[in-house]
């Protein structure tokens, strides 16, 4: 587990360094994810240990958002002042973007898969 955690942190560190050095507008961990992804393709998959640790971490991904979410405390005043536009914008835009993405992908996949087939 420690080996796998070390590996994840090393990739994150390399990502952070690249972002700073090249002045990229993307966070370091996302670059780290991309690098690890490419490494896994080249090395044909993760080892047992890395797979186990990653699954363990990802199973409790929800927990990791709790501290930032609690920051809602800092913005009660603004939320009270602008609750209507913020709430409506959040709800509608979230529903709309899920709908647009899901319908479009389903349609496009159907077309790719069903090419030459009759329905």
């Amino acid at each position, binding site marked *: 587990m420690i080996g796998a955690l070390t590996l994840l942190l090393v990739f994150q560190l390399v990502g952070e360094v690249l972002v700073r050095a090249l002045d990229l507008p993307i966070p370091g961990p996302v670059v780290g994810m991309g690098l690890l992804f490419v490494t896994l393709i080249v090395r044909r998959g993760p080892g047992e240990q890395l797979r186990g640790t990653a699954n363990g971490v990802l199973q409790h991904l929800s927990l990791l958002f709790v501290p930032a979410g609690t920051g809602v405390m800092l913005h009660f005043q603004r939320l009270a002042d602008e609750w209507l536009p913020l709430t409506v914008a959040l709800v509608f835009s979230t529903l709309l973007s899920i709908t*647009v993405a899901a319908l479009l992908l389903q349609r496009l996949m159907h077309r790719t898969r069903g090419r030459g087939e009759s329905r």
Partner: protein
Amino acid sequence: MTPVLGEIWVYLSATPLLGLTLTLLAYQAALWLYLRANHHPLLNPVMLAVIMLVLVLSVTDTPYETYFDGAQFVHFLLGPATVALAIPLHAQWGRLRSMLVPLLATLAAGSLTAALSAVGIAALLGASRESMMSLAPKSVTTPIAMGVAERLGGLPSLTAVLVICTGILGAICARYVYRALRIDDHVVRGFAIGIASHGIGTARAFQVSEQAGAFAALGMGLNGLLTAASLPWVLPWLERLMG
């Protein structure tokens, strides 16, 4: 008795131990409720844990900064967890490669819809400019969204909250949207929720299946890249257009 308790409280509230332990306790309690209720989407564990923590901190008059001194150890793990998303992603690589074009087209449409509809609705309903700019990157993962908001002239800490609300909303609503649209494919379900509601949507998708989770991670990662690259020039251009 009370003075002793008071002293203990003064000691505890000055160390990171309390913030860290409270976070884990609140999450455990929220998870317990969520599991007891058979994964009911309205009992989203992030939302429940946040509500509990806000109540505890308000009642004990503890500032958020004091709490975060401890909670930052949990917050920090968002980095390595993001890197770890490469592993489920790799497991789906074969499937992913065969449908690259549909995925990229969906990404572009979903990403723009998420940002522009939010800003548009907020503008129509008279939100302040600061709030709109904080809202624009709400569909992407917290660290990217905070960076983008800062670039646009929003408030990064407000963005973090809006991002998390978006994630919770997506995790709660997605099931009903998919049922109404009759979408069963786990690839489609995962990718769409990843685009619309980032890591919290992805966490939810992993509970459905590894395939849904992997495609949610892909949607989230790609949407992060695209939003970071596009919003800083799309939004100013729109603002100029609308005068």
